[in-house]
């Protein structure tokens, strides 16, 4: 998984079926200290994350399809957790 910060939402009424009715969050990837890496991803939100929150992103198809309970679906990125705290050793 990767750490990211929710930057906003993507509104889309025409999409592949797996995204119907799903909340799409646009997230900036950040390093563990919270600094943006410059990359972003659009991910399906299944944990009700809000703008500005730090989240965990899964970016892998099989896991994503498992979460969405679909055998075939063009999905990779899912917001799978809201980060409370990052503590480095």
């Amino acid at each position: 998984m990767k750490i990211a910060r929710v930057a906003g939402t993507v509104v889309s009424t025409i999409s592949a079926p797996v995204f119907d009715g799903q909340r799409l969050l646009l997230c900036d990837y950040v390093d563990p200290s919270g600094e943006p890496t410059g990359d972003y991803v659009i991910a399906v939100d299944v944990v009700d994350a809000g703008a500005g929150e730090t989240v965990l992103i899964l970016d892998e198809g099989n896991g994503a399809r498992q979460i969405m309970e679909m055998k075939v679906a063009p999905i990779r990125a899912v917001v799978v957790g809201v980060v409370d705290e990052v503590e480095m050793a």
Partner: protein
Amino acid sequence: MQLARVIGTVVATEKTPNLEGVKFLIVQPLTKDLEPNGRPVVAADGVAMAGPDELVYIVGSREAAQAMPEPFVPVDHAIVGIVDEVALARVASSESRVEEGAQ
């Protein structure tokens, strides 16, 4: 998934059989601020409704093939949705982190 803009179409009559009926569009990947990001790619139209200049979002690798009616097609980029709006929250700056109970 990434944002992209449809900038053209590609017609290829001579192609591998299992690409029959797949519509190819040229898309320019974009940053979240809708600036061009990297080089254009040819994407299969997974929603079969994306028109010229439209803002879309694309997926890559194996998931692109799964956007097509026949999931085992040799496709590595696919349009999987048309964007109505990108609503970016006005987060003051990267320094001002959102921490509950912060001062």
